[in-house]
C-alpha cells in the first residue's frame, strides 16, 4: 500500500505531509521516489515487482557509515560481524551497485589493525569501487596521516576530492580535522576555495552529490551535530537544480529538504545513537540484543533515468533481503 502524496505545494515536489510520512518509516526501511513531481513513499516490504521495475534507473550506489571497527562495548560487542551482515545485504541487492560510499568512522581508534580488518571485510563487497571520507575516529593522534596513506590517493588537502559518474558530480569532503574549541565540524578555508573552484565549470543542471562524515546541516549543535562553515559550502551549490547531501556520524537516519538540497544521514553498521536530546549525551546507545539489527543498516541510492532526483532506500540489517520484512 503505497502512499502517494497528491498535494504538491513546493517546487521541490515534497509537501510536509509526505515528508512526515517518509520520516515515520525511517529506520524500518523506506523508499521515497519522485515521479512526475509527486513524491511517493513506500514501506520497503510493500514495493511490488512492477514498482521496482519503474525504479530501475541509470545506476545505483550504496552508502554505508560508522563501522567503528575496534569498538567492543555493550552497545555492540562484535562490530565486525554486523559490518559483514551489512556487506551481505549489499551483495544481495537485486542490482549490483556501481560503487559504495563509506562516510567515515571506519575505525574506533585509528589503529592499524582496525583499518586492516575493515579493508579485509570490504574486499568482499561486490561492487565497482569504494570511496571514503574520514570520520573523527579515523584521524586520532596523527591528524589523519595514516588515513591519507591508505585512502588519500588522488585526493587534495586532508583527503577531499570529486569525481563524475553517469553525469552526476560527486564531492567527498573532510570536516573532522582542525576542530576549534567550542566549535562543530569544520571544512576550513582551503577546502572551501577548492570546492568553489571544483564546481565553477559545471552546468547548473548537473546533479550534485556531496558526502562527508559530520552532517552539513545543523542537526543538533549541542551535541556537535553540525558543521561550522557548511553554509558557505552550500552557498557554492545554490545554483544547482539537484543537490543531495549524504552524511553519517549520528548513527540514525534523518532527512531534510531545503530548496533544491536534500540532506540525509545514514545508519551505522556498528551501534545506534540516541535521537537528538533524548539522552544525557550522544554516546553509543545499548538496545536489547534482539533489536540491535533493526537499528543498523545500509542505504541504497538509485538515480532514475530522466529525473533529477534520486530514490533512497534505507534498509536495516533486520529487514529480510527479499524486501518482504520491511515495515513493522
Amino acid at each position: 500500500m503505497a502512499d502517494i502524496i497528491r498535494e504538491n505545494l513546493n517546487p521541490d515536489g515534497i509537501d510536509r505531509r509526505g515528508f512526515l510520512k517518509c520520516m515515520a518509516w525511517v529506520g524500518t526501511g523506506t523508499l521515497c521516489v519522485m515521479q512526475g513531481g509527486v513524491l511517493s513513499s513506500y514501506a520497503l516490504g510493500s514495493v511490488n515487482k512492477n514498482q521496482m521495475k519503474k525504479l530501475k534507473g541509470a545506476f545505483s550506489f550504496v552508502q554505508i557509515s560508522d563501522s567503528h571497527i575496534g569498538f567492543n562495548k555493550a552497545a555492540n560487542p562484535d562490530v565486525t560481524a554486523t559490518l559483514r551482515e551489512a556487506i551481505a545485504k549489499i551483495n544481495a541487492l537485486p542490482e549490483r551497485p556501481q560503487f559504495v560510499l563509506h562516510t567515515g568512522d571506519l575505525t574506533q581508534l585509528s589503529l592499524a589493525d582496525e583499518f586492516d580488518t575493515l579493508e579485509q571485510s570490504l574486499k568482499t563487497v561486490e561492487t565497482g569501487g569504494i570511496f571514503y571520507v574520514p570520520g573523527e575516529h579515523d584521524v586520532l593522534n596523527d591528524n589523519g596521516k595514516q588515513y591519507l596513506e591508505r585512502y588519500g590517493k588522488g585526493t587534495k588537502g586532508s583527503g577531499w576530492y570529486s569525481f563524475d559518474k553517469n553525469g552526476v558530480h560527486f564531492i567527498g569532503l573532510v570536516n573532522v580535522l582542525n576542530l576549534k574549541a567550542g566549535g562543530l565540524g569544520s571544512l576550513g578555508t582551503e577546502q572551501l576555495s577548492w570546492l568553489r573552484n571544483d564546481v565553477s565549470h559545471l552546468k547548473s543542471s548537473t546533479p550534485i552529490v556531496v558526502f562527508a562524515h559530520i552532517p552539513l546541516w545543523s542537526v543538533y549543535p549541542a551535541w556537535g551535530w553540525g558543521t561550522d562553515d557548511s553554509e558557505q559550502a552550500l552557498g557554492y551549490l545554490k545554483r544547482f537544480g539537484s543537490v543531495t547531501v549524504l552524511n553519517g556520524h549520528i548513527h540514525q537516519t534523518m532527512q531534510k529538504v531545503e530548496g533544491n538540497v536534500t540532506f540525509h544521514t545514514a545508519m551505522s553498521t556498528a551501534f545506534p545513537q540516541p535521537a537528538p536530546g533524548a539522552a544525557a549525551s550522544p554516546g553509543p546507545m545499548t538496545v536489547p540484543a534482539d533489536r540491535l539489527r533493526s537499528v543498523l543498516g545500509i542505504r541504497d541510492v538509485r538515480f532514475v533515468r530522466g529525473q533529477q532526483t534520486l530514490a533512497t532506500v534505507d534498509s536495516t540489517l533486520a529487514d529480510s533481503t527479499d524486501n518482504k520484512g520491511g515495515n513493522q
Partner: protein
Amino acid sequence: MGVAYTKISAEAQQSATATEQTVTIDNFSFTPREITVAAGTKVTWVNRDDVPHTVVGNKKEFGSKALDTDDRFSFTFDKPGSYEYFCSVHPMMTARVIVKP
C-alpha cells in the same frame, strides 16, 4: 550574591591547597567543568565514556593522545593562570583549569 561569592572563594581555597586533582570525562563532558588548583598541582583526567576523547589546551599548552575508556592523562600545572581546554575530537566539550600562585 554575597553568599554565592563566599562559597566559590571557599571552594577555591580548598582546592588550591590540593596537590592532585582528578577530572572525570563522562557523558561527553568534563566534570568538574572548572577547577581551581595551586601551582604545582598534578591534574589527572579519566575517560569514563565508551568513546575516545582528548584533553587539549586551547593554546596547545598541554595535550593528550586519544584516551580510550578508562585511560588517563596527567599534567602538572606549574605556572599560574587560566587554562581553557577542550576535546579535539568533540570540540563542544570545553572546560577550564585555574592555577593560583
